[in-house]
């Protein structure tokens, strides 16, 4: 069995082995192997290519951008997604605009250990996919499976554009798979994670598993719920979502991010604009609460969508 975290490490090792343009840069990622051990042993296996940085997010991203301009394929680790705001300017104004402005692409990958875990609190739990997706010029990946976190990270490095790679901390060690994938879906295609008939849940990341559990719960009530895993939120594969809604006529978007302008809002806005006639009921959103992510595990569990919260939201949607 390989965990989601081990899959990330395997992808990094493969990338370092296959592509001399790849190097890793970030806080404590060298001999220490990173705060979550995603780069464990890589500094030893690839001498000089896994570098500890100072405590300087703005400089870390800036360095990656310069290296990318010169033809490298830097992969940088933010110790937590929450700290990427300290490198925000370099990401949204420098990396994101470079290709549009100069025709020179900016192939950097910024790894963002994202999402909530019990006791992590307001500053070690954030989901920033909506923030980065709002900016032109960025690709935002949100893998929710072991297979995807591996293959999408490999693909992220192949892409010429800056990729914000939102890997979910809650899945790091919980989520396991038999083995790494050989054949994989392209990163920009959403995936039908569960087939159904009565309604569609559109989600990604850790919420994929809460949603699948909710769908399972609802089987008892005789409902067949389809679950679409977006995998990448920008670009967003609207076609796959619409195809599912065409089958079910009902859609609930579930995201761990904050509600205002989040992934769920974008999905609903697209589905209603482009698939209005497919809808048998008003499309619904379920997000985290609109407050900072609380510290206490009980508050945290009530702050984010859970399988049971998703199931009851779906119940309401099915009765509409």
């Amino acid at each position, binding site marked *: 069995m390989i965990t989601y975290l081990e899959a990330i490490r395997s992808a990094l090792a493969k990338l370092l082995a296959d592509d001399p343009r790849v190097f890793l840069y970030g*806080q404590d990622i060298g*001999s220490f192997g990173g705060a979550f051990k995603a780069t464990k042993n890589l500094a030893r296996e690839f001498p000089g290519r896994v570098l500890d940085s100072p405590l300087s997010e703005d400089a870390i991203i800036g360095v990656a951008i310069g290296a990318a301009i010169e033809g490298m394929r830097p992969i940088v680790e933010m110790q937590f997604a929450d700290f990427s705001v300290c490198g925000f300017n370099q990401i949204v104004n420098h990396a994101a605009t470079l290709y549009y402005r100069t025709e020179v692409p900016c192939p950097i990958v910024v790894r963002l250990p994202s999402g909530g875990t019990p*006791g992590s609190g*307001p500053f*070690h739990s954030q989901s920033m996919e909506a923030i980065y997706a709002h900016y032109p010029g960025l690709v935002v990946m949100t893998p929710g499976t072991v297979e995807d976190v591996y293959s999408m990270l490999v693909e992220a490095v192949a892409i010429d554009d800056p990729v914000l790679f939102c890997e979910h901390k809650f899945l790091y060690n919980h989520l396991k798979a038999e083995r790494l994938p050989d054949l994989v879906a392209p990163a920009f295609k959403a995936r039908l994670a569960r087939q159904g008939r009565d309604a569609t849940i559109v989600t990604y990341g850790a919420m994929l598993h809460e949603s699948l559990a909710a769908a399972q719960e609802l089987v008892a009530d005789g409902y067949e719920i389809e679950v679409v895993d977006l995998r990448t939120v920008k670009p967003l594969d609207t076609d796959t979502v619409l195809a599912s809604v065409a089958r079910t006529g009902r859609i609930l978007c579930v995201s761990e991010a904050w509600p205002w302008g989040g992934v769920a809002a974008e999905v609903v806005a697209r589905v209603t604009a482009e698939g209005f006639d497919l809808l048998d009921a008003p499309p619904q959103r379920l997000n985290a609460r*609109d407050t900072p992510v*609380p*510290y*206490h*595990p009980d508050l945290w569990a009530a702050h984010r969508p859970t399988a049971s919260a998703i199931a009851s939201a779906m119940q309401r949607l099915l009765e509409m």
Partner: protein
Amino acid sequence: MSSVGARLSPKRGQYLRAYRFMLLARVAEEKLASLYRAGLIKGGVFLGRGQEALSVSVGLNLRKGDIFAPLIRDQAGRMAFGDSVLDTFRTYLGSQLGSMRGRDGNIHRGRPREGYYAMISHLGAMIPAVAGGLMARRFRGETGVVGATCLGDGGTSTGAFHEGLNVAAVEKLPLVVVVANNQYAYSTPNDRQFACKDLLDKAAGYGIAGHRADGTDLADCLRIVGAAIEAARSGGGPQFVVGDLLRLVGHGEHDDAGYVDPGLKSAHVGRDCLKVSEEFLIEKNWASAEQIAGWRTEAKREVDTTAARVQREASPDPAEEDWRAVSIPSGDLARV
């Protein structure tokens, strides 16, 4: 330098008060570590073991009415500034009754209204906030106020540190920034963090005064930090203090700190400031080994009873939460 600190003998009363806070902090942190290992504290536990002397010197030299923004490893300084064992455990355990009411936890606690600012995680961020607090005091005509904040060696690499210190220098604010150079930022050693010969070399670049303290020697810390705070209070502008010491524990309790250079542990910088101060107390005949043992038992009793009490307290009830991040009366916002 510690010898110097030892030579100019410190004030007995202050030294003893400082020691008691260091001891209480040490004992409280040992309890926090055991609660963490027992799985009773979720998230993380971040201790200041080995940094108590420098930290307590900040909290103790500040007065009521001053501003203090402690950081990760300031349990001793927090207590000297007025924080309690009770609120420490309530915050770590997420009690509804704690200052953060379970919404934030561990080291992210404070009571801003009392000048005790609650750190955010992003390092360096408290520096401009304390500067702003001091500007507010100046606007209100308050004088003789000092604002102090602590940081680590790694924190000096942040843009926030640079911008905040520069603004304070331009405004000539009574800000004291105390850097605990514990040789590592998480696992990152000084030589991967900065290239200046000495962190004190940064002071001139801001046009502010620099001070060095031996972080393993309470007497030296009390003297140097006290002098820096006094200089700020009397109009000397921002003061930059660097204390050299070693983090005698992991970055957090999850971390075995296997990366720490054994050479440092056996060096002067690796001394345990608590032990050093106990030897000093005895050498000075300010306290006997028995008294010290008694104080530890006392501290342990307070900590254990408090921990037990807090574990019996109710957790925050999600159903009772209003889930509002803004203070605007709900009435005013049909829907946010």
